[in-house]
């Protein structure tokens, strides 16, 4: 095999286009599932606070399922299993409209929602009880106290954990390749099988992923620094 030659890949516009599409798809799946996960996670937390044992048990079961079943299996369950239950017209329509990415976003989003919900819950538990009393003593309603006093603090408390899980979610987007989504890892494998230059292809993929996770972690560190000045002095 000829020596190391990155340009064999980068110089070809076709491969460049594939790479760019791959990155775009990865980012699309990432952002879609993150938004779904965050909103659902917050909703789960809200449901959990209802004074109902069924609500608490339901949310606990949801979280337990999504944390104990491997993410790949969840993806496959959605794409192969649940999709087969849909009426045939819907299945055909979905197949024509990039259904793989949609199922990937749904599966990844639902899975991460469990983790985000737990992160927010820990963040909320870390807020001192006096904050709640002070808010109520000033006349805030339950929702007012949550909205203006407790949740802002809960989110700040939870942001390191949320950041970690966000990076995990970004990496998990690669699992979508198992159901045929043309995200970055899939593209890398494609390029490798076409050029036989595994080292260069994998190196490119590695560099791109590292750059993205580095960006995410740097953003997280910046958020941490900004939050630190709001913590009470020791």
């Amino acid at each position, binding site marked *: 095999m000829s020596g190391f030659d990155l340009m064999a890949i980068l110089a070809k516009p076709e491969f460049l286009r594939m790479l760019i599409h791959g990155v775009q798809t990865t980012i699309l799946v990432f952002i879609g599932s993150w938004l779904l996960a965050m909103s659902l996670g917050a909703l789960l937390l809200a449901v959990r606070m209802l004074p109902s044992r069924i609500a608490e048990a339901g949310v606990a079961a949801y979280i337990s399922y999504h944390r104990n079943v491997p993410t790949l299996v969840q993806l496959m369950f959605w794409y192969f299993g649940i999709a087969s239950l849909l009426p045939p017209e819907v299945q055909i329509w979905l197949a024509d409209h990039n259904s793989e990415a949609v199922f990937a976003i749904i599966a990844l989003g639902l899975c991460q929602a469990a983790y985000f919900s737990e992160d927010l819950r820990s963040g909320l538990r870390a807020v*001192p009880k*006096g*904050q709640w009393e*002070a808010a109520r*003593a000033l006349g805030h309603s339950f929702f*007012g106290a949550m909205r*203006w006093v407790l949740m802002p*603090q809960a989110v700040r408390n939870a942001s390191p954990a949320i950041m970690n899980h966000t990076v995990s979610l970004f990496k998990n987007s690669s699992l979508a390749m198992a159901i045929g989504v043309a995200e970055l890892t899939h593209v890398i494998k494609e390029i490798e099988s076409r050029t036989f230059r595994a080292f260069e292809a994998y190196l490119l993929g590695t560099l791109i992923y590292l750059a993205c996770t580095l960006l995410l972690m740097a953003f997280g560190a910046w958020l941490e620094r900004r939050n630190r000045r709001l913590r009470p002095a020791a």
Partner: protein
Amino acid sequence: MRETQGEMIGFRGVNKFYGALPALVDVTESVGRGEVVVVCGPSGSGKSTLIRTVNRLEEIHSGAILFDGHDVHAKMSSAQLNHLRGRIGFVFQSFNLFPHLSALENVMLSPMRVSGMARAAARERALALLDRVGLSARRDAFPGQLSGGQQQRVAIARALAMEPPAMLFDEPTSALDPEMVTEVLTVMRGLANDGMTMMCVTHEMGFARDVADRVWFMDEGRIVETAPPEDFFGRPQHPRAQRFLSELRTR
């Protein structure tokens, strides 16, 4: 002695239990408008519990508590209770400032979000109150950047921002280092001189002597003695009050 017209806070046969343990026993007393009452007693006597029942941070099992004529513990909608609470100023021992907001924002928040005040008006009121407690210069500081004494003064301003007819203080200086106690007591003295109705749970006997109209002494959930400060400190009647004061002196 201030002129008091009518009752601001009234306790009518209040009882409270923690399981089988009595926390408040047959408390019947009254705080008049413009009156300053200091509540003292040994720890566990129920003083904090008593003051926390006034704005219903604690529930009671029998009796009634009236604030400005309203029965605080009556069955009411949460909106009504929230409105009532906004009118009862409460200052905590541990300040409980909101750490994610600056001092100014802490004071502005509740007039805006609870009373529906416009931002500009709320800001104006907050600036005036911070000036009154001597902290205009630190208005953009966050609680984490303020000393304990400064935080407590902001907490007082925050409570005042709701324009309450009465203020409740739950051991406001107990969590402060000694050198910061004075600055908070000075603000409280100022409030009293301006005619605010105040109920304070405190160990600061100097403050009680100078500012209080009456001192209530509590022991084991009961108010066992009430008297103007010179009578209470000079000639305590109840044996437990006598013991409490003598222990204070020997410290």
